[in-house]
Structures are given as C-alpha cells and as structure tokens.
C-alpha cells in the first residue's frame, strides 16, 4: 500500500538537480573562486574561462554565453554579426514582460537570446547562430525566430553552411501563440535551405528543450551534443508531475539521446572546433570527384 502511494500519487520531492547528468552549475564562492557543481572542486574563475567553462577536473560543461562560445570556435577576427538590431516587442501586452525583458537585457548585455553572424572555421566560411543561456535561458520569442529564419535565408542566398548552438527552455510564453509560430517559421526556412543541398550542423547544449527541440534543434543534417547536456521535449519536472514517478538516472541526457538514436555524436566543447572544421570539409568537397 505504501509503495503504491509513493509510486503513483506522491509528488516527487527530490529536486532533479541532484541527479547525475542533470545540469550543474559552477557555484560562485567569491568573485575569484568557484566550486564545480558536480565534482565540488574549487576552481579559479580565470582557469575556468581559459578552459571554455569546462571543469578541468571532471569535465562538467558549464553554461557558456553566446559571444564567448562564438569567440572560442571561429577563426580569430572572422566573426561579423548579422541582424544585431532585431529585438522583441511585447505583442500580447503580457503582464510583467516589459520589465523582464529590460532585466534580461541589462544582465546579459544582449538585446535578444540569440547571436547570429557569418564567420570562418579553419578557413571555411559559414553562417552561425548561438543561443544565449544568460538571456531568459535562451527562450524563443519572435525575435529569436526572426533572426534564425533570416540567418537560414542569408546562408541559402550566400550558399554557406549553417552551424547552430542551441540552449533553450523552449518557446517564450510571454509572446504566446506567436512564439509557437516561430517553430513553423524557422522549420520552413530550414527546409528551403536543406533543399538547396546545403549543410546544417547543430550542437545541442544544456539545456535544449520544448519548442526548440521540437523544431530546429532536431532538423540538422548532423546533430552533435555536449556531454551531460539535458535535451528533451517536455522538461523533466513536467514529466515527473504527469506520470507521478521519478525519472531514471541519466534520462534526457545527451548520452541517452545518443543511445536512442537522436544524436550523431557527443563532442567535448574543447574538441568542437576541430570536429566542425572536419565536418565542413567532408560535406563541402564532393566536387573532388568531378575533378578526378
């Protein structure tokens, strides 16, 4: 009887953050020192910054801002930002949204939750977008959808491959149905781009969920993921509340998606530049056959 009660009707009371493989944070001890949320090692923040925000002791991948991410992966000085002035409005006049946007802008220094541009990786040109965990956890509203759709249209016109980095809690509910429509809009742009024989590589980072997972995160030709990243459609808490049971260890991690067949490769952040450079060459040199 007690097992029945526990399993079916009791709401989970252990926070998911304690699960292995679930998102960890580098917890600030003071301005200079941080503590790894996974292995509990004390780390110098400078040491972490030099290591692409990856714990040098245990390899935990911490959140990385869009601009740091771009700077760490492209050829030095090659990044040119695109559509930088596209910003969200408040189409629903949603209570509290204006203030929330202001706060997100102030704290992140970004106008929106995605940064787009063109750049080179190992001398090969490409278009890229990187979502920003520091801006409302990469939530997707109209501006995010608009920027990514424009990027795929730009890349189609310029015949460039697209590299994307996703991090998102999902569609931005303060923009209501218009956020949902961004899934259709971007999917349309990805389809047109793909029909022209162009390559789309997407790197799923922690966390990638909701409407982003149910659209452009799952539409790439090659889907990479960072170790330990949480990737799913429904968030773990929502699932636990729906089915009234604890989720198995490692559920919805990058490793889980690899095993289930939804991710091609798991790539450590520090090896991504090399990996992506190689993919761009492999998929971009088919003409070699014609040249003999």
């Amino acid at each position: 009887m007690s097992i029945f009660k526990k399993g079916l009707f009791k709401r989970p009371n252990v926070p998911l953050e304690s699960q292995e493989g679930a998102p960890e944070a580098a917890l600030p001890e003071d301005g200079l020192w941080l503590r790894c949320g996974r292995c509990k090692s004390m780390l110098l923040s400078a040491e972490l910054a030099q290591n692409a925000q990856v714990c040098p002791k245990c390899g935990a991948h911490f959140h990385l801002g869009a601009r740091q991410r771009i700077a760490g992966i492209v050829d030095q000085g090659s990044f040119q930002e695109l559509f930088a002035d596209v910003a969200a409005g408040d189409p629903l006049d949603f209570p509290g949204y204006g203030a929330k946007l202001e706060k997100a802008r102030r704290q992140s220094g970004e106008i929106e939750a995605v940064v787009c541009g063109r750049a080179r990786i190992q001398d090969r040109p490409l278009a890229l977008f990187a979502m920003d965990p520091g801006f409302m956890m990469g939530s997707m509203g109209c501006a995010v959808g608009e920027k990514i759709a424009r990027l795929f249209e730009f890349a189609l016109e310029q015949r460039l491959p697209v590299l994307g980095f996703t991090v998102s809690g999902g569609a931005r509910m303060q923009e209501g149905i218009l956020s949902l429509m961004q899934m259709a809009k971007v999917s349309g742009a990805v389809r047109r781009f793909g029909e022209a024989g162009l390559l789309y590589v997407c790197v799923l980072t922690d966390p990638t969920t909701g409407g982003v997972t149910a659209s452009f995160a799952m539409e790439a030709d090659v889907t990479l993921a960072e170790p330990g990243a949480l990737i799913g459609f429904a968030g773990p808490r929502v699932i636990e509340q729906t089915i009234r049971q604890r989720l198995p260890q490692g559920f919805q991690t990058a490793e889980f998606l690899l095993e289930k067949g939804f991710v091609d490769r798991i790539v450590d952040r520090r090896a991504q530049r090399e990996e992506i450079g190689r993919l761009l060459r492999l998929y971009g040199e088919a003409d070699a056959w014609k040249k003999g």
Partner: protein
Amino acid sequence: MEKRLSSPWDRVQAARSAGRPTARAFIEAMLTDFTPLCGDRRFGEDSAVLAGPARLHGKPLMVVGLEKGVDTKDKIAHNFGSAQPEGYRKSLRLMKQAEKFRLPLLCLVDTSGAYCGIGAEERGQGQAIAENLTTLMGLQTPVVSVLIGEGGSGGALALAVADRVWMLENAVYSVISPEGCASILWKDPAKTREAAKSLRLTAEDLRGFGVIERIFPEEPGLFAQLAGALEETFAELSRLETADLLEARYLKYRKLGAGIT
C-alpha cells in the same frame, strides 16, 4: 442572438468540455467513405491519431485528426487525444500519401498537447513534431487545418502548418496551458484565469495576430457550413501552381513575428 462565451477562461473550459464533438464526429458529419488506417511503420499504432482517406461531397481527400474519445473507455483508448511520437509519425506517413496521390489534406486538431512521458521522450517526441513541421512546410498538396477544440502547443502545431488554419468559435490555441503558465511564470495556480486572458488564446485573438484566417460560429448548421467552406477552399487551392501554393504557405508563417525591429 445566441449567448456567446465571453471570458477566455470560459472558452478554455468550453474547448475542453466533455460534450463537445471530437474529430470523429466531424468526420462522420462531413465526410463519407472514411477508411481509418493504422500504424507508423516504425514502432506502432497510436489511436490518438484518427486518419485515413475519405470523401468530401464526393471528392477524395486525406483526413488526419487528433481524437480525444467520447466516454471514459474511449478516451483511454485514444489516450485523451495526446499523441505519442508514433502518432505524429503515423500522421506524417499519411501526409506524404496525400502528397503522393494528390489528395488535399484536412487536419482536425483537438489536443491538450503531445503526450509527455518516458516512452515519448525515448522515441523522440521533439524530433517527431519537428519532422511534421518541415514536411508540412513543403508538402505539395493543399492543406487546411481546423482547430475544433484544444490547440495545445507543439502537439497541435504538428498538424497545423497549413495553407489555411481555421478555428471554431470556442476553440483555443496556445503555446502553453493557462495552468502551466500560471504555475511556471507566477508560481501560483490561482492565477489560471488571468493566464488564460494574458495568453490571448481565443479565436478572435488569433485572427487578430494573423495566425488563423477564419472563425466558425458554433451554431446549428456548423458541419454543413464547414464542409462547404472546405470544398470551396480545397477547389481554390487545387487550382494554384504547386510552387505558388508553397510560396504563399511559407510567407504566411514567415511574416508572423517579423514586424519587429
């Protein structure tokens, strides 16, 4: 003048009401020769999706509906209209058949959302929905989606990327349920009614945003009116060049949320 439901929360309740006709009732009232087909040819059959070829006023089409079921037993059999990935892959298979056989595609949407559970995640709920979106964006046949009850987020959108999206007067369509919004955003389930209002999920709101084109009043003669409109619209869309049809479909979504700077 009949009584019209006024508050958004009333609409949400009406859209979920047990006495409301489900997809099957629309199929039975408007179509003939309906031949339900089963399975996604990948994993299994999902009865939350009721789909197959049928006739509208004698002309053949493909219908794909999300079916909630009518009584308790039936609701359980249809998983309350919440599809698993195999349900979306079954609908994908029949959408592609519609394209292959040049049949117009009618989607009937009524779901609180895509099913949320361990198996659904293991089998790629997100990927299944995403593939429907890219496929519908380029599907070379006319597509009309009608929201007949609840339009619950991505699980509804997976059947609602269309040349025309219509709604019944008391249907609702939202990125998240009012309950979900109140609990996530305001950590206060008591704010559900306020969330229903703030989310702008009524048919009139959605027409205002350009997300849907047409609203059908819930009054006697609804089925006949809807069937007539579908026949007329499919005939009109069928006369278009495929490239023009797809360009217009793309632009319809492309402009949503593009008016920002």
